[in-house]
């Protein structure tokens, strides 16, 4: 494989623009974020709070926002509540939040998180298809697994344990079922043929007949194929052990590379994943010292230094732009940024970082597509069950592998 020298001259062909997403969670990713001015922490459980954040992200022409979620109370303890009273606790269902803001936004992608290991893929598939309908093609899905013992007790129907490899295997099956269900209606299955009295052409509805280790699902979906065909699926890998899952199941993998070399390694490990995004927590101010000071102030309020699985960046939008473009050289196609404090760092992204990237020709000036797949440069996929244009006319012809 040719290795690019690290100090190569600027490429003659300008590389593809970056994709940017923002991860919305509570008042922001720093544990003391909710105590900051303007954090609106008493409104976390209202629709208006989320609508305002999404409007801000859309103002910045971002590709999409993600909504964090879980089936247990947030905790620093992996097995159950930590009993703390000084941190944001409680959250609303991410799919419902995304649906609630969909009619109030027009361009930005909406990507809720779903825990694959406790949910029914049949329900998830139709929920995301419906999010795609209510947003007119802007739905995406972030899949996660849960290893938490308290979540197992919340459902009470499966044994704890299994280990991450097993759980990611189950999640991959889950995604496979979700996607087959999205395809279980051909796009033109609804015929409304008054002459024969048939509303649908049942030949264009397909049983998915999925049989896996953990579950079997018959299909078809009760919801017709969503506008995007297959809404993009994404997942986070906090370590390389999760890359095989990203490779199998996702259109967008988020990786927590700490530097350009790690980014390059992640990209090399995921050659067929359409998008590999870097994941960073960001604290942005006009002066680097101001960002550092703010992070220290937050740490002091919290009583501990902030740590994260992802790299923590505190600095100016210009310096962040430098870093993102350097990592783009490593092959990343975009970034999912976790604002340290949503009230402060989300506008710093939309009003500081975005204009800076635009000045450098590295980010869009206007929304160029109406669907999330369109924004991500992903074509609308053909339906796996539909005969293609070159389909053999006779059913006895040998099937393509």
């Amino acid at each position, binding site marked *: 494989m040719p290795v690019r020298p690290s100090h190569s001259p600027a490429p003659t062909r300008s590389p593809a623009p970056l994709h940017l997403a923002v991860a919305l969670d509570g008042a922001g990713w720093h544990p003391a974020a*909710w*105590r900051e001015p303007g954090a609106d922490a*008493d409104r*976390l*459980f*209202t*629709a208006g709070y989320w*609508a305002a954040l999404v409007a801000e992200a859309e103002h910045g022409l971002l590709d999409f926002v993600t909504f964090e979620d*879980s*089936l*247990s109370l947030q905790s620093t303890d992996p097995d*159950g*509540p930590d*009993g*703390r*009273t*000084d941190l944001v*606790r*409680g*959250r*609303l*269902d991410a*799919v*419902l*939040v995304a*649906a*609630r803001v*969909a*009619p*109030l936004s027009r361009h930005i992608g909406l990507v809720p998180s779903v825990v694959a290991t*406790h*949910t*029914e*893929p*049949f329900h998830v598939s*139709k*929920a995301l*298809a419906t999010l795609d*309908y*209510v947003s007119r093609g802007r739905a995406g899905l972030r899949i996660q697994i849960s290893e938490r013992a308290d*979540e197992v*007790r*919340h*459902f*009470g*129907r499966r044994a704890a344990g299994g280990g991450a490899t097993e759980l990611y295997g189950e999640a991959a099956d889950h995604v496979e079922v979700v996607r087959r269900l999205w395809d279980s209606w051909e796009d033109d299955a609804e015929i*409304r043929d*008054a002459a024969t*009295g*048939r*509303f*649908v052409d*049942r030949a264009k*509805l397909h049983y998915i007949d999925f049989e896996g280790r*953990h579950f079997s*699902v*018959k299909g*078809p979906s*009760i*919801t017709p194929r969503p506008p995007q065909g297959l809404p993009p699926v994404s997942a986070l890998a906090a370590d390389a052990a999760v890359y095989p899952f990203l490779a199998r199941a996702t259109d967008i993998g988020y990786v927590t590379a700490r530097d350009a070399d790690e980014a390059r390694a992640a990209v090399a490990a995921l050659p067929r994943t359409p998008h590999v995004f870097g994941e960073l927590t960001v604290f942005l101010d006009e002066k680097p010292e101001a960002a550092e000071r703010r992070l220290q102030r937050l740490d002091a309020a919290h009583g501990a230094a902030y740590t994260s699985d992802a790299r923590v960046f505190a600095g100016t939008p210009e310096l962040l732009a430098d870093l993102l473009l350097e990592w783009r050289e490593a092959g990343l196609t975009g970034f999912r940024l976790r604002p340290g404090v949503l009230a402060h760092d989300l506008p710093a992204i939309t009003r500081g970082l975005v204009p800076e990237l635009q000045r450098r020709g590295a980010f869009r000036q206007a929304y160029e597509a109406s669907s999330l797949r369109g924004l991500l440069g992903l074509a609308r996929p053909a339906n796996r069950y539909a005969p293609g244009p070159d389909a053999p006319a006779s059913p006895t012809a040998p099937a393509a592998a």
Partner: protein
Amino acid sequence: MSKPLKQIHLAAHFPGVNSTTVWSDPAAGSQIEFDSFVHFAQTAERAKFDFLFLAEGLRLREQGGEIYDLDVVGRPDTFTVLAALAAVTEHLGLTGTINSTFNEPYEVARQFASLDHLSGGRAAWNVVTSWDAFTGENFRRGGFLPREERYERAREFLDTAHELFDSWDGGEVLADPVSGEFLRDAGPGAFAHRGRQFDISGHFNVPRSPQGRPVVFQAGDSDEGREFAAASADAIFGRYGTLEEGRAFYADVKGRLARYGRTPDELKILPAATFVLGDTDAEARELAHEVRLKQVSGATAIKYLEHVWNRDLSGYDPDGPLPEIDPEPGENTIALGRASVRMNRDPVAVAREWRELATARGLSIRELVIETTGRQSFDGSPLTVAQAIDGLVQADAADGFILVPHLTPGGLDVFADTVVPLLQERGVFRREYDGPTLRDHLGLAAPRARALAPAHR
């Protein structure tokens, strides 16, 4: 002094997967695009309706081993579409039918609590109990639930959900940046439920929602269903909209409430009904007949008969007489995926009754089906319809109606424009919403604490 006039409750059932919807009409739009839902919901809100209602079916219906293709097929996910509708309406209640067999309490309670937050207190849950193995094939758990257990699970599901809703009392979130206390106490949301159907414990992660608990509806009709409703529901989505049947059902169900320490106005009875409006009664009747012919095509009539006969009747002429042969005994295998609302009677008896009716009146198969599938329909001029609805409510045949128009999405428009103003003039229907929540619209008090629910610990 005469009794004060009862106030009517009205709701709108989004027409979809059923034999009411006339999809072949030139005015019929999409039953899946969000614009249809927006139009329908905003019309209902303009008319000051109590709520919008969505039914549910978790597997595409089949008949004779093939996907049923004569009715509308395809519907969106209930929670997702209701959450989106919360953004384009301000007052309208949002009622979703969610099954208690193919779901888990922690997840469903979270979804309803979230919907209640995101709608400012407008969520309602119609608990249905479909239990069949056919539907179960779409789910991890499979179709394991025996029919007899459906209400056991439903009851325990609802009790558990109430425990989760009640696990936050509403005062926990301080979000005080000065003191640094986000929560008043550590570990809110604690719950523990041990029963035959569920053995779960931990911490619910959605703070108490504006209504405390969503409003609860019930839709089953069996004795167990009625008892379940009397014990736990705020409203019933009923089947009986005529004067005699309605009064009998109303008296029966309301009579069961005292046993649970409840008063009659704590449970609203809202039968489903459709309507056809015309400038005159004669015109409406003629239109209604045309609608019925569109709803029940010859092919639809044969398919419908097969539900009862439980055998292939495709060789019969819909314009001819009823089959001489008797229904196939045993479990119905021909029609799968339909909520079994009319299947609990002996099919042989039903067939005999129908043959007698058809012979006496000289009805063909299609005419018989049109006759027997007609549910409560208010057909007439706006004044006739307003009087009929009001009459039934004042006579205690219902507390109001859940209206299912035959057209998507514009089927409610004329009703909103013509019948609603007449009901308002009669002083039996609101002109403005009194409060923000669905409980306000239905005149239901804030939920009482958990005390009434049987303990399962």
